[in-house]
């Protein structure tokens, strides 16, 4: 099973949001990383067939998804970045409604909904209006609707936004289990969420895929570019000017431990550190670090 994206381009008036992207998604969890405006959402919308590409094709097992129409949508699940819902519907009514649209047999619907609500710890709010739920709960309702039809292709744009740490862990475990024999594409700013579960990652920058691979392989690229060392706290300002410090922790006694990205050690006492996906992300998107958006 594969979803093949070939030379996909989306040109808006004055901007190329997706620029000649070629990517073959196979079974497993795929992490789609990129800064704001990198083109992730546009790419996901085209994969969801709710936005027409300017050029290029997306094929599922060799067939153009647009031509597949209904048969593609019946194996597809999508959670957009902004989860919109009818204001007056309860969680249960909403999921029943989406289930009918997904052609899930009526006799299976209640069972399926209850099982998803259990997994996503939403059973207690089943009868509540979605509008009255907290942000994290709404997000989980969004995840539930995407998974109602046991999709073979599941695309989720920022699924963990608004979830608390425990919910994120549950979500990661659930997705890991779910992803067997399925293609799951997740875009997130919370790099740690996909670091644990993504079998492969694609990194987008300015509309292009700049890197694809397994997490272990990708981080090898920065094997000797992540450093740690302990410095006197009074030197921190100076090093902050010189280096791309991605983490700092006070060690007491006027000392601070820093983790930074650099081609060379720069500080004589620095030691090479084991790189992580987050380091790679920050290596590619230094601006993200400055904006403090990476968690």
């Amino acid at each position, binding site marked *: 099973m594969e979803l093949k994206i070939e030379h996909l381009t989306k040109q808006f008036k004055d901007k190329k949001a997706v620029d000649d992207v070629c990517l073959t998604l196979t079974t497993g969890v795929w992490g789609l990383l990129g800064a704001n405006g990198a083109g992730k959402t546009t790419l996901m*919308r085209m994969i*969801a*067939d*709710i*936005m*027409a590409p300017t050029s290029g094709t997306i094929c599922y097992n060799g067939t153009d998804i647009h031509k597949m*129409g*209904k048969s593609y*949508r*019946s194996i*597809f*699940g*999508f*959670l*957009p970045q*902004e*989860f*919109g*819902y*009818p*204001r*007056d*519907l309860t969680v249960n*009514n909403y999921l*029943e*409604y*989406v289930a*009918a*649209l*997904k*052609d899930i047999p*009526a006799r299976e619907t209640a069972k399926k909904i209850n099982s998803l609500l259990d997994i996503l710890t939403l059973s207690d709010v089943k009868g509540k209006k979605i509008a009255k739920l907290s942000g994290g709960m709404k997000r989980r309702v*969004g995840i539930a*609707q*995407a998974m109602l*039809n046991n999709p073979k292709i599941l695309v989720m744009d920022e699924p963990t936004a608004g979830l608390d740490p425990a919910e994120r862990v549950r979500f990661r475990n659930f997705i890991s289990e779910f992803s067997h024999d399925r293609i799951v594409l997740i875009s997130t700013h919370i790099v740690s969420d996909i670091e644990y579960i993504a079998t492969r990652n694609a990194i987008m920058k300015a509309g292009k895929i700049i890197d694809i691979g397994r997490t272990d392989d990708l981080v090898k690229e920065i094997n000797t570019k992540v450093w740690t060392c302990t410095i006197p706290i009074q030197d921190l300002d100076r090093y902050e000017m010189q280096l791309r410090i991605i983490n700092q922790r006070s060690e007491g006694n006027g000392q601070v431990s820093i983790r930074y990205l650099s081609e060379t050690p720069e500080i004589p006492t620095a030691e090479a550190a084991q790189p992580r996906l987050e380091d790679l992300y920050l290596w590619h998107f230094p601006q993200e670090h400055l904006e403090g958006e990476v968690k």
Partner: protein
Amino acid sequence: MRLFRLEVKRMLTSRRTLVLLAVAIFMSVVMAYVPIRFESINRLGEDGNIIELDGLPAIRFKKDYYAQAADSITPEKLAQALQTYQFYVQEYGTINDVPLDIYIEQLMAIRPMLKGLSEAFADSQTGIPVDLMDISPQEVEQHFYDKCISHLENVMDFEQKDNPSAKQFATDTYEELERPFYLYYGISRDAFDYITLYIFVLSILYIAIAAPTFASDYQTGSDSILRCTKYGRMKFAITRILAAGSIFIVVYVLGISIHLTVLNLAFGTDSLKTSFQMLFSVINLPNMTLGQLQVTVVLAGLLSILTCTSCTFLISAKCKDSLTALLISIVILFLPFFLYGAIGISWIWAVLPSAGIGMKNNFLYQLCDFNFLSIGTISFWTPYVILIVAAMEIPVFLYLAVRFYCKHQAA
């Protein structure tokens, strides 16, 4: 069917929709009550004082009073009524000088019958109605219905002089009217005005309900989820339109039924046998009774409302937010009213979905009028144009609404 049921359920769980539908039902009673409240009559009390009756007591009094005068309007009866009228007016000077007791006893019952006489005998050059005192009862007896036809010809010569086919249509249609006319005094013109006004109110409420149909989902982003589902495109759009349309039809039938029931219970159903010409103008073309007119106006109203809502679905499928869809739909709803006032009858007015809804331009007023639209030498009477255009537009608007929805791209 399951999707349809869930869609209806979704619509009926929306507080906004429920409030608007409740207003629609509530207004059916209120707007039926207003023309009842308008009714009034003066009568003499037992002590000789004038008693003014309003609302239902006035209608009750009139019903009893006019029941004796209900009959077919034959030229002989008209001539006799005219003679009675002329006798009393001659005796007292003017109609206003006739003492109330004599007026009530002798004249009031025949006044509705005489209403059309001045019009039928109007001056052929100026079209100005003739005073009843200047009409010869003999001529009425011999030529009343001929006079109606010649007055119609005069009116058509005046209003449609460049349109011989319109004149031909009018005279041919008029020739086929069932005669003599029948009169049973009761339901008022106000009541009919309020039926059309109620239809107008319903169309505003329906547009408010229909405007967010697709635009709201675009606005909230829920569209991105729904259109990714198996049935999230054409089937979804059709089901959503059908569900809304079904609710509109059910509420329309319910609201209009309540409205007409209240009116007919108050005014009595006997008056529904009255000929169209006896309530409006003696030269009007519709060959129908007031009962048939009620049904015609209601069915034409339903057709026009469905055309307007279909147009609103189309606008909703095209607009990115509900407010824009609502504003555009409301402008389109009111446009015929303004166009009618500004440039009169035109094809632009006629092709608008709400051509038959509104104030002066509404379907009922077009039935009472002699407006024609032409293509070359062929003329079309505007009530027919309204119905035909509306019937043609519904499938076009719905097709385009579904198509636009299916083609919509996430923003």
